[in-house]
């Protein structure tokens, strides 16, 4: 089959690889009908997530049709149409019972590696490094899906792929980002990053009752897109974000701040950017944490900083003093997608939201490397790329 394969930093190739086969009794094989490129994939391609290996198949946002099931799968049948959550979860461990699917205790066969780097191991993730399991991803014609009767959600044919595909990751992720803010009526939420994740966070903040949402980015075409959700916008290349947020919130600061950018943030001051960029290149720190720093500084006293942008390792110059002295709460995590698929599918059915609003590009899987180029460099007003095998 054809698959999008990581061959080194900034080097992707469409290659012929073997078809997947059942390895565990609770596996299913899914024929992919739609898959997408995510901001998280960029961290892999840019080489900032450790333990990616030449030959790895990428992709963690996908859906399709079940073509084979293992002997231990009960609730899924050949022919079912499913959307697959990106974290792999067993459904039976302590974490899964608590709804903390992205830290499932059983789904990462390389827990030993992850443990050395992080203390304890998170769940396995499709196409997302060996530290997170060594599972092939979904930018391919077929994928093996472990614990097939836990994660995948069945969807009737009446909803097209484009409306439900993002239940695999970015809609639940944006939603969780907003949910972690504990939004109360009248509140103002600030979101860094007007990428697809930031856009879903903005839409979700309104769904959860936010009064105002302010989104920060530098690409006018993305800011225009997010304005359609009803959000106000700030271009951080034109204004001082901290001053602007202070002014917009009566001097108090936003009630909660969402980091939807993560480890590869950009900084408008060339000197500051060069400083962290150089440290990151020398692997002295693994992140460029401007957004995290800024979100912490901006948040009102006693507010919540909700981090859904991905971080991989160690952050430098972390303003712990302001977190502590101003009673801030930091909440974060890879999205516990399985928790949200069902309720969010209902919201789509009820017409509260149509997730396809984020799509800007559609192309065949064979063009995946080109799609990555556009998405990474924000060319051609690229917002979200959907690939079809």
């Amino acid at each position, binding site marked *: 089959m054809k698959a999008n394969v990581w061959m080194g930093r900034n080097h992707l190739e469409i290659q012929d690889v073997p078809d997947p086969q059942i390895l565990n009794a609770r596996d299913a094989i899914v024929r992919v009908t739609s898959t997408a490129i995510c901001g998280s994939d960029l961290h892999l391609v840019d080489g900032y997530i450790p333990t990616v290996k030449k030959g790895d198949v990428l992709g963690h946002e996908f859906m399709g049709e079940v073509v084979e099931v293992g002997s231990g799968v009960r609730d899924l049948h050949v022919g079912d149409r499913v959307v697959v959550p990106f974290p792999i979860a067993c459904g039976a461990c302590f974490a899964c019972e608590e709804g903390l699917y992205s830290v499932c205790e059983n789904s990462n066969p390389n827990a030993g590696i992850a443990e050395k780097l992080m203390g304890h191991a998170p769940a396995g993730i499709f196409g997302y490094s060996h530290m997170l399991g060594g599972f092939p991803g979904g930018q391919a014609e*077929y994928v093996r899906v472990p614990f097939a009767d836990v994660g995948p959600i069945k969807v009737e044919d009446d909803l097209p792929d484009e409306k439900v595909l993002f239940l695999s990751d970015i809609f639940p992720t944006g939603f969780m980002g907003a949910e972690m803010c504990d939004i109360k009526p009248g509140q103002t939420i600030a979101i860094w990053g007007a990428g697809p994740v930031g856009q879903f966070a903005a839409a979700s903040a309104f769904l959860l009752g936010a009064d105002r949402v302010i989104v920060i980015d530098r690409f006018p075409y993305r800011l225009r897109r997010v304005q359609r959700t009803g959000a106000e916008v700030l271009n951080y290349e034109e204004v001082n974000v901290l001053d602007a947020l202070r002014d917009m919130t009566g001097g108090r600061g936003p009630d909660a701040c969402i980091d939807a950018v993560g480890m590869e943030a950009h900084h408008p001051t060339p000197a500051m950017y060069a400083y962290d960029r150089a440290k990151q290149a020398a692997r002295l720190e693994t992140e460029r944490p401007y957004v995290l720093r800024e979100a912490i500084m901006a948040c009102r006293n006693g507010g919540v900083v909700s981090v859904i942008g991905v971080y991989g390792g160690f952050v430098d110059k972390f303003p712990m003093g302001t977190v502590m002295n101003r009673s801030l709460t930091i909440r974060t995590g890879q999205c516990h997608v399985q928790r949200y698929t069902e309720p969010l599918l209902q919201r789509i059915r009820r017409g509260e939201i149509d997730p396809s609003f984020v799509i800007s590009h559609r192309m065949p899987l064979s063009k995946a490397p080109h799609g990555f180029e556009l998405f990474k460099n924000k060319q051609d007003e690229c917002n979200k790329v959907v690939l079809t095998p």
Partner: protein
Amino acid sequence: MTDKFARALGWTSLALGAAQLAAPRAVTRLCGVDDAPGATTVARLVGGRELLHAALLLGAKNPARWAWTRVAGDTMDLGVLGKAAANRTGSRRIRVLAALGAVAGITALDVACARGGTAKAKGPLQVRASITINKPREEVYRFWRDLENLPSFMVHLDSVRAIDQRRSRWKAKGPIADLEWEAEIIDERAGDLIAWRSVPGTGVSTAGLVGFTDGPGGRGTVVDVSLEYGAPGRKLAAAVARMFGEHPEQQVRDDLRRFKQVMETGEVVRSEGSPEGHRALRQLHQRPAQPIGGRA
């Protein structure tokens, strides 16, 4: 004594790490791998790792135990350099081989130190690990008590056959030759603990104790395992096993992770990168994360 030795190793790590971070090119040139793409990145990563060792060895209360982290690191380096030597010729090859020799020497020191730390004055080798399993105590106990189940999660065991209620025959894959011995249960309290030891004179000298207690708040079962190895031949066997990245402690921990998977999900979880499930050796030498193939 061993701890002093360990702290010295910690200072060495600090110096090495600092050098690799400050001048990665010089380090890769010295080792003859400066022609490899990404060599300086690897050198920096290794440098970062050395700083971690330094922090562990210099900061810990009983640092000798942490020398194992250096052994693991050494094993990684030996693998990388071994591969590099195979791919090179001429003066580069000589430099790589020299680096390989140096690392092998350091590994020997680290193993000596770490074993000193683990064995504490040449006693038998003891390892301990524990895990929480989301199943009732009775069920977890019963699965383990049927010793014939053990090979389903202890990958080094080929088979265990019960001879009678107390005695059993064990077969294992050794690093050099296969091992076979007889074991007997020396204590058992239903639902609480099982203790066993090898019958003297049957080839291997080992003993084990596994305890089962209710998890916090009555949720699940905490499984505590202690193992002891004392065979005369175990020195060599254990050293070789370690050379291949399977520190006994890690082995037991991986066994317990597999045990948990079997109890909670029905079987050992496999990925294309780690088709056998948790294994230290496999974690160092991953397959790429792409389908395995081979079936028509």
